């Protein structure tokens, strides 16, 4: 009877979230920015006009021109081409360090939130202690301890961001585990491991995705900061942060050396932040 007619109408959850996201202009702008930077990073060799490592003593610190679109640096290398290749380091630093933070933080958060008791007490104490240290200070200290390299910088940033994901996941797991459907899972005799993977994890995922997107932006800034301090990408390999690091000595003589990498960091961070905010709104269950 009417039962069949009624259930056909509503759209799928994902479809609804997608259409809500597309209706949000700043979210779409964020998504477009991120996609553009990712494409530029992937296609760097295609888009580059010069060899990013090619020095030229006849073209030192040249202002933007038809030949060098964004000018040249202190060794006469093309800034546009170096930025294209440098975007790889910046994006990778963002994505890989957040992946580390998620892979370490989410399981600990799930265990602490689901089991409670001494596991929770131990995990929460460590998390709170780490969260008391400012993120960037922690990343710098870890990177200095591990030694200067892009890989170590990513590990340092990832570990520094881990407590954020532990705390978020733990809090979400605490609230999800009191839902009737979790008790229903226990009622059919489902083992705890499966309750965590099938019931808790999928239901805490949306806020984690949102947090990850926003943390990528933070991680990109952190990588730039570490490179700026000489703890990230090592010369002659480019990254936006290391380009800023050398540009700081020529702020007045060659402002283009800092303006373009700085602007790129600003745009990609803005993109990830807008994307994260848009995802948060689109995945918000309260409107469903």
């Amino acid at each position: 009877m009417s039962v069949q007619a009624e259930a056909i109408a509503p759209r799928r959850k994902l479809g609804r979230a997608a259409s809500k996201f597309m209706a949000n202009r700043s979210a779409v702008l964020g998504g477009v920015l991120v996609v553009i930077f990712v494409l530029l990073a992937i296609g760097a060799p295609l888009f580059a006009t010069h060899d990013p490592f090619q020095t030229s003593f006849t073209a030192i610190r040249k202002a933007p021109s038809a030949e060098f679109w964004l000018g040249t640096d202190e060794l006469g290398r093309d800034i546009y081409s170096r930025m294209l290749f440098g975007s790889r380091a910046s994006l990778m630093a963002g994505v890989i360090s957040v992946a580390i933070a998620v892979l370490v933080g989410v399981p600990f958060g799930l265990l602490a939130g689901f089991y409670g008791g001494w596991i929770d007490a131990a995990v929460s104490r460590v998390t709170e202690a780490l969260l008391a240290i400012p993120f960037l200070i922690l990343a710098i200290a870890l990177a200095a301890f591990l030694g200067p390299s892009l890989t170590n910088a990513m590990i340092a940033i990832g570990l520094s961001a881990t407590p954020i994901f532990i705390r978020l996941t733990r809090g979400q797991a605490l609230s999800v585990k009191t839902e009737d459907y979790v008790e229903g899972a226990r009622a059919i005799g489902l083992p705890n491991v499966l309750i965590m993977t099938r019931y808790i994890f999928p239901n805490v995922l949306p806020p984690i995705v949102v947090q990850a997107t926003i943390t990528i932006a933070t991680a990109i800034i952190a990588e730039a900061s570490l490179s700026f301090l000489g703890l990230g990408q090592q010369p002659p390999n480019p990254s936006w942060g290391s380009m800023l690091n050398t540009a700081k000595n020529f702020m007045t003589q060659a402002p283009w050396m800092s303006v373009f990498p700085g602007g790129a960091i600003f745009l990609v961070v803005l993109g990830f932040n807008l994307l994260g905010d848009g995802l948060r709104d689109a995945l918000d269950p309260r409107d469903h």
Partner: protein
Amino acid sequence: MSEASRAPAGVDIILEGHSLSKRFGGRGGFFESSPVVHAVNDVSLAIRKGETFAIVGESGCGKSTLGRLLLRLLEPSEGEILYQGQDITRLGAKEMRRLRRDLQIIFQDPFASLNPRMTVGAIIAEPIRLHGLARGREVNARVAELLRTVGLRPEYADRYPHEFSGGQRQRIGIARALAGEPKLIIGDEPVSALDVSIQAQVINLLEDLKGRFGLTLVIVAHDLAVIRHMSDRVAVMYLGEIVELSDVDPLYEKPLHPYTQALLQAIPSPVPQGRTERQLLQGDVPNPTALPSGCRFHTRCPHARPRCSEEHPPLEPVGEGRSVACHFWREIQAAAEHPGDPPLASATLDMRLELYRTYQTRKAEQAAPHHNPTGGQP
């Protein structure tokens, strides 16, 4: 174990609770200690194989807690649970998981009881796979059959719970509860979140399934109308205790405990215009963190006397398989039999019961050989 929970000879007991108590709180964090909630106090009961056993009482009186204790979804503070004669109170996690196939639950809130990230098919297939009842394609066939059994279309297996109405979701919950081929199902107010018209359909579905699969049902309800025509026995709870236990007909015809009498008169009318302000139950339920002394009902009982606040009345057998926990039930009963007193059951109860009867008659009339098994649910 009290007299009250002892079954007549020859009756098969499937699930028993012995002196079950459950307290919440007490030991708070390091700095604060929350007050102790006495949710269930020294409750004993024995559920007979194949019966429909109802647990009734106002919201907050410990019905859900008792149901969860019986399934060991909560650990009792005191007391034992016996399943088919075996003490399962201290059964290990692994053995308990195997046993869970037999003992299932249907939740009150159909919007909270299904995992929103799983399809209906996955929700129903989970117990089948978990307990190894089928493999591969056979699982899907079983899921389709279960959906049909509860009156839903098999195609719904691909959909997510949020696409369904409350009544449909409750049917999905029932299908999942059935999937493990249980022996006993506890329905924790399985219809109280649904419209009155849908309530009757879901109740009738449960009854059909009970007959078909030889189930034992324990139905928790906060008002007496829902369970009248489907229960065999009723336990009336007040503040964590059973105050009256009886076969269903005598309970409705001649309620012995003053609280049961009040509950019967408090049944709301199905039509808003018919709702009269009959405030028989004076005041609120006392706080379960500070239980009244003596008889827990004495703060609201119209028949209370000094003895009631001093001495706790035990649940005592009064013949015909009935038990009641009241010092003065005999006197109260004798007084009620005087002519001129108002009838104990309200007219609104009759109206509510009429709804179920009408539905059942209509269903019997529709029962043609090629009748669509989905019936007519909204």
